C-alpha cells in the first residue's frame, strides 16, 4: 500500500459543484469548486491573480540557451537571492491588498506534561499591560463548533480535566493586537513551568496503535515464477485486535487470511529451526526522533472578515489542495458564517513537515477569533521544535537467513515499530512503507514483516523525508554488511549475489517498474578506488595517524517514489506570439520543480515554458469530481464511479514522496504532447504543405514521429525548420489546439483513456482532458472513452517505482574524542534522464548532508526531556555544517540513462539514505564495532573504545 491515512482527508473536488460557472472576478481570482457551500478562490503568491492585487515580480522567465533544453538559473532564483517576499513567513497584513493593515499575532500555551490532567492556566505573570486581547480555550471551540478536520484527531485545544495526548499539546490560544505586547508576553511566558496548571499524576492507559500491518510472502521456485502467497496476489494481513495484536486464526477453510498465516507460520518455523547450511542472524536496530528542521518555521497568516463572510489564508504548506478543501469544511461546520475562502499558497520548505500538518487550521482558528483582524501565527524555533512534525523513531527487530554455501538470502522476518506520537497523521502509512522497503535492493524468497505505528505521548510524527524507509533500509544495509563479514565475503560481492534484478518481485509480490539498475550501481562502486584500496589505505593512514582510525563504508538502497495515489493537473497555454505558460499543481518547496516542469516543455515546444504557476488548485476548465479513498476503494465501486467521465479518484497530490519530476512531469509532458499533436503539428504541416502541388512537403515522406526540435525550430524529414512563434500564430489562425488542461492518475500504473480531438482518437495516459482551439474563448472538455483505471488490487503492490543510490564514505575516527571525521564521500545514483542536472546534483549534495546529520549528529529525546517541553533549539540540536559534510571533498556520478527515452525518476528522498549505512559500516571498518542505534555520537564511540 502506498501512503494514506485511515481517517481520510477528503480531496478538494467539490462533487456537487461541477456544473458551477467559472468566472474571473475583477480582481483576477479564479473561482474554484464550491465546497460545503463555500466558494473557494485561489491566488498563489506570484500568480496573475495575486499580481492583480499588487505589483509582483517574483517569478522570472527562465533564461536559457537555445543550444540545449537548459536553463541558466532557477526560475525562482532572482526573487530568492534578493530577499524578496516569497515565503508565507515574509507576509504581513500590510502586504495583502484589501486586508486591514494592522497585523495581530497569535501564540499558544502548551502542556509540557502528559502524565497528569490539565487544569487551566494563569497569565498573572504578564501583569496588566501584557495581557492578550483575546483568549481562546477548548470551551470556545466546542461552543462555536470549531474542530480539526478528522485527519488531525481530537482536542484541537485540550479541555480542562483531560490528560494531554502528547507533550506540547495546545491548551489555549492567545491573540494580541499589537506586536510589541505579543513579543514581550511570549518572552515572559516561554519556558515558565507555572503558567500551565496540572492536577495530580494520573495513570495513563496504553493506547491502541494507530495501525498495524503484516506483509507475508512466499515466492515461487524462482524469483520469476508466480508467488505462492503475497500481498499483491493475495492480501496484506491485518490483526483483529491491535493493542496486543491478534492475527487471523488459521482455519481449515482456505481463506486468504488463513493461507497468509500458514505462510507466516512456515517462515517462523524455518527461522527457529533452520537447516545446517543456513546462517540466521538476528539484530535489533533503533533510530532516533528527528526534526527535519526546515529553516522556515511553521506559520500561517489568516484574516476572517465577518462582514464579508470571507476567510483569507496565506499558507506555508506542501498540500494546498488539502487545506483548501478541509478549511472550507471546517468553517462551514462551525457557527462562523463563510461564503468565500481565499487561499494563498506560497513557496515553502518542509521535507515533509509541512505536508498535512495542522498549522493552517490553527491559523484559521486564530483568524476566526481575531475580531475581524488579520492574525499571524508564526512559531519561533523553540515552538517549531515543540510542534513540527517529526521523523518517526523506529525500533526494528530483524531476522535474516542466508545460505552459507551460496551467500543467497533465504528469508527475512521483521518487526518494525514506529513511534508515531500523540496524533496519527500519516503514521500507519509510514510504518507500512518502512516495512515494504526493508528489503532494500535484494531479492528475498520469503518475508514476513509486521509494521506498527505506536501511539505515544511523544510529539506527533508525520511524513518526514524518507517516510520510514530511511530507518528500515539503512538498518538492512548495516545488517547485510555484518552478514558479509560473518561469511567472509566482500560486502559488495554479497550484495551483488542477492541484488534484485529486473522482472523479480519485491516483498509485496509486485514487479518493480522498468529496469532495476541497482546491480550496475553496485558494480561501479566495487570498481571505485575508495573501495579497491581501502585495506591498503587503512594500513597506511593508521600508521601515519596514530590518534585516528581509518575506515571505508558502503551502502546501497533503492527508494520508491510516489504514493500509489498520484494525481496532477497541468495546463499548457500557447499564445499567438508563441509565449508558453504552464500551470501545475506542484508546490515549489525548494526542489526546483517550477524550473524542471518548465524545462520539460522543451521536449514538445523546443524551449522551456516562459511562465510557470505552481500550487495551482483551481481547474475550472476541467472540473473533475471525486471523493473516493483511493487506497481502500473496492473494485466494483471504482468501476461504477469511473463510468462518470469527469470522475477521478484523486484530485491532486501534495508535493511530497519525491513525486514532482516523474508524476507531475508525466502530466506536463502528456498535456504538452496534446498541444503538439493537435496544434503544432497540424500547423507545421499546414505551413509545409503551402503552395502549388502540396508545397515543400509533397515530395518527401513526412511523419510526426520524425519531428525534431533543433535550436528552437521544428523540422521533420528535411522540412524547413519553423520557429515556435510561427507555429503558434498559424495554430491560432486556423483554430488548431493552442492550449490543453490534462489530469493524470497513477496507482503504480497510469490510468488511460481514449480522447477524440479534431476527428482523431488517441489513447492517452490521462484520465481527463480539455482543449482550447485557437483563441478560444474557453476550453472544450474532451469526453473520455474506454477509461482504464489501475485495479484496486494494485494498492497492495506496496511500491513499484524505484531509483537506486549508493554511497561510499571515507572517514577517520578520532580515538581520543570519538569524533567521526568524514574525509570524503562518493555517491552513485541512477535516476533515468535528468531534466536539470544542477538540480539533481543539488538534491544529492543536500540529501547526503541530511543523512550525515541523521547518522552522526541529530537527536531528540522522545518524551519529557525532548522538544515537547519547548526548550529545544539549534544550540542543542546539531544540524550538519559545511565542515561536517566534507564540502570540498565529495563527488557524485549519475548513471547514463538506458536511452534518451528513459523517464526522469524521483530522487529527493533516496539521496539521503545509503550514506547513513555507509557511515555506520565505515565506523565498523575503522574500529571494529557495529553500532545498531543512531545517532552514532562521539560519546557512544568513546564508550566502545574505552571498553
Amino acid at each position, binding site marked *: 500500500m502506498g501512503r494514506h491515512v485511515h481517517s481520510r482527508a477528503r480531496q478538494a473536488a467539490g462533487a456537487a459543484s461541477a456544473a458551477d460557472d467559472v468566472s474571473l472576478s475583477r480582481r483576477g481570482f479564479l473561482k474554484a469548486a464550491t465546497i460545503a457551500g463555500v466558494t473557494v478562490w485561489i491566488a498563489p503568491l506570484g500568480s496573475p491573480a495575486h499580481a492583480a492585487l499588487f505589483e509582483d515580480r517574483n517569478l522570472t522567465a527562465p533564461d536559457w540557451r537555445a543550444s540545449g533544453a537548459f536553463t541558466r538559473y532557477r526560475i525562482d532564483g532572482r526573487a*530568492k537571492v534578493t*530577499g524578496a517576499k516569497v515565503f508565507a513567513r515574509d507576509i504581513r497584513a500590510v502586504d495583502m491588498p484589501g486586508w486591514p493593515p494592522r497585523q495581530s499575532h497569535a501564540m499558544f500555551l502548551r502542556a509540557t506534561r502528559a502524565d497528569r490532567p490539565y487544569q487551566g492556566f494563569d497569565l498573572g505573570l504578564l501583569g496588566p499591560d501584557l495581557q492578550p486581547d483575546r483568549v481562546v480555550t477548548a470551551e470556545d471551540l466546542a461552543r462555536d463548533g470549531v474542530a480539526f478536520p478528522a485527519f488531525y484527531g481530537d482536542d484541537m485545544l485540550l479541555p480542562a480535566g483531560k490528560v494531554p495526548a502528547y507533550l506540547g499539546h495546545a491548551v489555549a490560544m492567545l491573540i494580541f493586537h499589537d506586536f510589541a505586547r505579543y513579543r514581550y508576553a511570549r518572552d515572559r511566558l516561554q519556558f515558565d513551568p507555572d503558567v500551565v496548571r496540572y492536577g495530580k499524576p494520573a495513570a495513563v492507559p496504553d493506547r491502541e496503535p494507530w495501525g498495524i500491518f503484516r506483509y507475508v510472502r512466499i515466492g515461487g521456485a524462482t524469483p520469476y515464477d508466480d508467488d505462492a502467497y503475497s500481498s499483491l496476489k493475495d492480501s496484506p494481513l491485518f490483526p483483529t485486535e491491535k493493542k496486543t495484536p491478534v492475527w487471523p486464526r488459521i482455519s481449515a477453510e482456505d481463506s486468504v487470511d488463513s493461507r497468509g498465516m500458514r505462510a507466516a507460520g512456515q517462515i517462523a518455523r524455518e527461522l527457529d529451526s533452520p537447516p545446517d547450511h543456513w546462517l540466521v542472524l538476528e539484530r535489533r536496530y533503533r533510530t532516533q526522533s528527528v526534526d527535519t528542521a526546515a529553516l522556515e518555521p511553521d506559520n500561517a497568516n489568516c484574516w476572517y472578515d465577518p462582514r464579508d463572510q470571507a476567510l483569507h489564508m496565506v499558507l506555508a504548506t506542501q498540500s494546498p489542495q488539502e487545506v483548501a478543501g478541509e478549511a472550507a469544511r471546517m468553517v462551514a461546520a462551525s457557527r462562523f458564517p463563510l461564503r468565500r475562502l481565499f487561499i494563498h499558497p506560497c513557496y515553502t520548505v518542509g521535507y515533509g513537515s509541512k505536508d498535512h500538518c495542522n498549522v493552517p487550521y490553527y491559523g484559521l482558528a486564530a483568524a476566526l477569533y481575531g475580531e475581524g483582524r488579520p492574525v499571524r501565527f508564526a512559531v519561533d524555533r523553540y515552538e517549531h521544535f515543540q510542534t513540527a512534525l517529526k521523523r518517526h523513531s523506529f525500533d526494528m527487530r530483524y531476522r535474516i537467513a542466508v545460505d552459507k554455501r551460496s551467500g543467497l538470502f533465504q528469508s527475512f522476518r521483521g518487526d518494525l515499530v514506529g513511534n508515531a506520537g500523540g496524533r496519527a497523521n500519516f503514521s500507519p502509512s509510514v510504518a507500512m512503507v518502512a516495512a515494504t522497503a526493508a528489503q532494500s535492493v535484494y531479492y528475498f524468497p520469503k518475508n514476513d514483516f509486521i509494521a506498527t505505528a505506536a501511539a505515544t505521548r511523544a510529539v506527533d510524527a508525520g511524513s518526514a523525508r524518507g517516510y520510514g524507509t530511511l530507518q528500515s533500509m539503512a538498518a538492512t544495509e548495516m545488517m547485510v554488511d555484518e552478514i558479509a563479514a560473518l561469511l567472509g565475503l566482500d560486502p559488495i560481492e554479497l550484495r551483488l549475489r542477492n541484488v534484485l534484478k529486473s522482472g523479480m518481485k519485491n516483498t509485496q509480490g509486485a514487479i518493480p517498474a522498468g529496469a532495476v539498475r541497482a546491480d550496475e550501481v553496485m558494480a561501479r562502486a566495487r570498481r571505485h578506488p575508495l573501495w579497491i584500496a581501502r585495506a591498503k589505505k587503512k594500513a597506511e593512514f593508521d600508521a601515519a595517524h596514530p590518534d585516528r582510525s581509518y575506515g571505508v563504508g558502503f551502502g546501497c538502497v533503492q527508494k520508491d517514489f510516489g504514493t500509489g495515489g498520484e494525481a496532477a493537473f497541468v495546463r499548457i497555454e500557447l499564445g499567438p506570439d508563441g509565449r508558453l505558460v504552464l500551470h501545475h499543481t506542484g508546490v515549489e518547496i525548494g526542489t526546483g520543480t517550477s524550473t524542471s516542469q518548465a524545462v520539460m516543455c522543451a521536449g514538445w515546444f523546443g524551449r522551456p515554458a516562459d511562465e510557470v504557476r505552481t500550487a495551482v488548485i483551481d481547474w475550472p476548465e476541467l472540473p473533475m469530481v471525486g471523493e473516493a479513498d483511493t487506497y481502500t476503494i473496492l473494485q466494483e465501486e471504482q468501476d461504477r464511479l469511473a463510468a462518470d467521465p469527469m470522475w477521478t479518484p484523486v484530485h491532486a497530490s501534495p508535493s511530497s514522496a519525491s513525486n514532482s519530476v516523474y508524476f507531475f512531469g508525466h502530466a506536463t509532458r502528456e498535456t504538452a504532447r496534446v498541444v503538439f499533436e493537435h496544434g503544432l503539428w497540424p500547423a507545421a504541416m499546414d505551413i509545409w504543405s503551402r503552395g502549388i502541388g502540396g508545397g515543400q512537403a509533397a515530395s518527401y515522406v513526412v511523419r510526426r514521429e520524425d519531428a525534431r526540435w533543433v535550436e528552437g525550430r521544428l523540422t521533420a524529414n528535411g522540412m524547413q525548420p519553423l520557429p515556435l512563434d510561427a507555429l503558434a500564430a498559424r495554430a491560432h489562425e486556423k483554430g488548431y489546439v493552442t492550449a490543453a488542461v490534462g489530469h493524470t492518475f497513477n496507482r503504480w500504473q497510469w490510468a488511460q483513456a481514449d480522447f477524440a480531438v479534431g476527428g482523431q482518437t488517441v489513447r492517452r495516459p490521462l484520465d481527463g482532458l480539455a482543449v482550447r482551439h485557437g483563441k478560444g474563448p474557453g476550453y472544450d472538455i474532451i469526453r473520455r472513452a474506454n477509461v482504464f483505471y489501475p485495479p484496486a488490487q494494485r494498492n497492495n503492490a506496496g511500491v513499484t517505482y524505484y531509483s537506486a543510490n549508493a554511497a561510499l564514505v571515507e572517514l577517520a575516527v578520532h580515538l581520543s574524542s570519538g569524533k567521526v571525521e568524514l574525509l570524503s564521500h562518493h555517491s552513485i545514483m541512477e535516476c533515468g534522464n535528468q531534466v536539470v542536472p*544542477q538540480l539533481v546534483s*543539488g538534491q544529492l549534495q543536500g540529501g547526503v*548532508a541530511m543523512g550525515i546529520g541523521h547518522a552522526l549528529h541529530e537527536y531528540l529525546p522522545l518524551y519529557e526531556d525532548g522538544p515537547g517541553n519547548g526548550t529545544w*533549539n539549534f544550540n542543542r540540536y546539531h544540524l550538519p555544517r559545511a565542515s561536517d559534510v566534507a564540502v570540498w571533498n565529495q563527488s557524485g556520478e549519475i548513471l547514463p540513462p538506458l536511452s534518451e527515452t528513459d523517464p526522469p525518476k524521483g530522487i529527493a528522498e533516496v539521496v539521503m539514505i545509503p550514506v547513513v549505512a555507509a557511515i555506520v559500516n565505515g565506523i565498523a571498518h575503522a574500529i571494529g564495532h557495529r553500532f545498531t542505534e543512531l545517532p552514532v555520537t562521539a560519546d557512544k564511540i568513546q564508550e566502545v573504545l574505552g571498553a
Partner: protein
Amino acid sequence: MTIPTRPLSLTINGKAVGPIDVPDGLMMVDFLHEYLNLTGSRFGCGIGVCHACTVILDGPDGSEEIRSCITGAHFFAGKSIRTVEGLASRQGGVIAITPVQQSYLDHYSFQCGYCTPGFVVGATVLLERLACAPIPRSRVESVVSEAMERHICRCTGYVRYYEAVKDTILSTPGLTVEG
C-alpha cells in the same frame, strides 16, 4: 509593566530611517520585520546559531556581519547597515544584482532560499574584507570555509554555495594574490 520605548534613528540601505519609537529590548530582526517590513533578513532560530538573519554593519574599519536576532535594535542607533534588500541596485525598474548574487544563481547554490539572504550577506562581507586584504589563491577554500561555516543551510549540503563563493573570489580582480 508598560513597554518602554525610545526613539531610534539609523541608516538602512543608504536611506535615513526614523526616529521611530522602538521598545527597549526589541531585537533588530523584529524591528526590521514588523516596523519596516524588511523581511529579507530571515528568522531561523532566534538564538544566533543559524545566521539566516545577518545584516551588514558598515563602519570606519569596514563591514561586518551582525546577527539581527540577538542584537537589539537600539544597538544600531546612529549606525549604518545594509540588508539583503539593499544590495542589488535599482535604476528605474531594472535591478542589477551583485556578483555574489549572480554567482549563487549561476551555481544553483540554493534550493528553498530561506537561508540565502544570510549567505549573500556573509559572502558580501567576505569579499569586501578580501578587497582590503587579499589572500593567496591557495588559501581561498579554507578562507571560504572559515567565513561561511557559521551559516546553516538545510537544503543544499553547502557545496554549491561554497563553489560559488570560491568562484567569485577567484574571478574578481584584487581579492587574491599569487601563492
